[in-house]
């Protein structure tokens, strides 16, 4: 568990920077999509079994000491635009930079907050800029997908001895497991595929991995891996369960054995998800058709809707991964395809959370691992592409104590570098933890009891510019 099995390989970055063979990589890794690790409902069953079976060996990983501050936020939705969306075409438009920079997207639109303009393909988000703030000056300077993804989602530098956990794993370590989440639904969920080469749980190990749903929430039936079988009705599942009970003679004979009892309890919990009410959280058919349409009838839009439902049910951290933003080639047609879905899904999510009074206690953050080069690569083979740009990226943050209607920092005239108020990934992550009431001195659960702070700090040698007090 302690071993850094997903150690970052510097060589990889230079290769990826030139040719993003991301799909083949993902396909290789995507095999892992299965009902990956995370699902931790078993833990509490195990605890129950341990109680029955008497003293166990001391557990190696003690939970971090609880000393939480007044929390404004209870849960987080992270929208991860994997590949890196162009900041200048989304939340940091530069219409005066000339067509070599803007391409055809040179008419940013006014939002409902005076003075804030965003990309022209985001009209729905423009209507509710008072609900979110835009950080236009995040920077880390890394142009490789792996390094940049790691930095933006852990706040740390890769390459050290420790592989740090992502925000989602940290948040659930404190807010899900430590606070004794009693929900059957795991506290950390990924819609729909995990990030592959990125280890969400880092050194904390498999207990803290997210549960990746697999399936497609926009399909007629959202087949969540392990929970919903596409071709079995609840009745058929019940009949199968009864058949299994009858065939399982050994379990009856050994009913007193603590291991067998734990296995049977785990099975019961599994069936509560398969045919019980807990699994219904993934059933979108109970939502109004009109609302589903507003979210957008596509995988991303419906994932946003599922995210809201999960948060309502007490899930602490939901990550929506969208793997589409690495637009080296023919960037602008891709933007015309991708941004309307992002616009509808994200805007409806924010509005819907606000309508239900959930936005106050739910942080939403949306970004990718870096921005994209403001200067368009018109030449072949890119034909109007944008490449990796780690010097600046924009981040949208909302809810859970983050103010709306604000812009933090600024990039320069062409969006190439940070002009004002640099924000480093650790600043945003520290701010998120603060809003969630995670003690800045708290330690992460480490399998060998090593002392590792949850919150990125300058003592680790990290470049930080301070919490986002201006919007908290």
């Amino acid at each position, binding site marked *: 568990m302690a071993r850094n099995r997903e150690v970052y390989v510097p060589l990889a970055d230079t290769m990826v920077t030139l040719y993003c063979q991301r799909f083949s990589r993902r396909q290789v890794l995507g095999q892992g999509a299965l009902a990956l690790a*995370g699902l931790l409902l078993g833990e509490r069953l195990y605890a129950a079994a341990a109680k029955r079976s008497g003293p166990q060996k001391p557990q190696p990983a003690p939970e971090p000491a609880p000393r939480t501050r007044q929390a404004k936020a209870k849960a987080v939705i992270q929208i991860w635009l994997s590949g890196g969306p162009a900041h200048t075409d989304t939340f940091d438009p530069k219409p005066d930079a000339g067509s070599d920079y803007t391409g055809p997207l040179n008419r940013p639109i006014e939002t409902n907050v005076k003075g804030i303009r965003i990309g022209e393909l985001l009209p729905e988000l423009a209507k509710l800029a008072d609900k979110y703030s835009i950080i236009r000056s995040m920077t880390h300077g890394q142009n490789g997908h792996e390094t940049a993804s790691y930095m933006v989602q852990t706040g740390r530098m890769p390459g050290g001895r420790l592989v740090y956990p992502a925000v989602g794993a940290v948040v659930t370590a404190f807010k899900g497991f430590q606070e004794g989440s009693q929900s059957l639904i795991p506290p950390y969920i990924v819609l729909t595929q995990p990030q592959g080469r990125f280890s969400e749980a880092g050194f904390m190990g498999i207990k803290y991995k997210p549960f990746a749903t697999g399936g497609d929430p926009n399909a007629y039936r959202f087949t969540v891996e392990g929970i919903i079988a596409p071709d079995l009705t609840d009745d058929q599942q019940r009949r199968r369960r009864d058949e299994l009970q009858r065939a399982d003679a050994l*379990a009856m004979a050994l009913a007193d054995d603590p291991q067998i009892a734990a296995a049977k309890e785990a099975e019961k919990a599994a069936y509560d998800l398969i045919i019980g009410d807990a699994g219904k959280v993934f059933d979108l058919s109970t939502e109004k058709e009109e609302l589903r349409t507003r979210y957008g009838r596509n995988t991303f839009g419906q994932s946003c809707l599922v995210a809201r439902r999960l948060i309502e049910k007490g899930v602490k951290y939901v990550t929506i991964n969208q793997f589409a933003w690495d637009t080296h080639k023919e960037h602008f047609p891709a933007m015309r395809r991708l941004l309307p879905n992002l616009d509808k899904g994200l805007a409806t999510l924010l509005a819907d959370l606000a309508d239900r009074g959930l936005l106050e206690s739910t942080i939403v953050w949306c970004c990718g691992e870096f921005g994209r080069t403001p200067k368009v690569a018109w030449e072949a083979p890119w034909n109007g592409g944008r490449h990796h740009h780690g010097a600046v990226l924009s981040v949208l943050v909302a809810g859970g104590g983050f103010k709306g209607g604000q812009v933090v920092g600024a990039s320069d005239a062409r969006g190439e570098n940070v002009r004002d108020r640099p924000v480093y990934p650790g600043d945003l992550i520290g701010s998120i933890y603060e809003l969630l009431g995670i003690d800045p001195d708290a330690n992460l659960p480490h399998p060998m009891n090593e002392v590792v702070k949850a919150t990125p700090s300058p003592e680790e040698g990290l470049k930080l510019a301070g919490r986002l007090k201006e919007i908290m």
Partner: protein
Amino acid sequence: MGRGIIHEPDDIRPDNPPSNPELLDYLAAELVQANYDLKHIYRLILKSSTYQFSPIPQTRDPKAAAHFAAYTVRRLEAEVIIDALNQITGTAERYSSIIPEPYTFIPENCRAIALPDGSITSSFLELFGRPPRDTGLESERNNRITAAQRLHLLNSSHVRDKLRNGPALRKLLQEGNATENLYLAILSRFPGPGEGGAAGERLAWTLINTTEFLFRH
């Protein structure tokens, strides 16, 4: 046996004495006498009536487990479960190692128990608690059963596809007495009176989800 004469087996120190020192001495003497032939010891143990005891406890004496009064049930290890599923269904896993680049792809006929490196893994192996091989301690392996594991075996597309499309399983269903074939392949025994039922993918599903299949017993 699922338990050491010294318990835990890698916790050897003066204040953790063996439960049965005579037995330990006897086995040690046998090992020396057989010129350190471990297979001799395996043979001794496997042929003993102690090893062949039923797992159903005959007594509630707290010392029973330390003295092997009944067979200790324990869940199959991650690698063993997936290898068994693959063998029964005639399917294979694709293992690869992404560190370091370039990627290494493991041949399809490689069993999980034969994977040479802890970093070559799959979500199945991780889910079922295969050790990362960091410390070499026996306790590194996590064989506790979780609801996520049950979900996976009961209801995942991974296992469903194996049962539905596995060529070896299809052959079992088509040849001779299919019900018997399934019991023999999955539980290594014939169906008892009142057991069985229509052979098919569903019976295979039932059998691989029984305690009998998932636990050494």
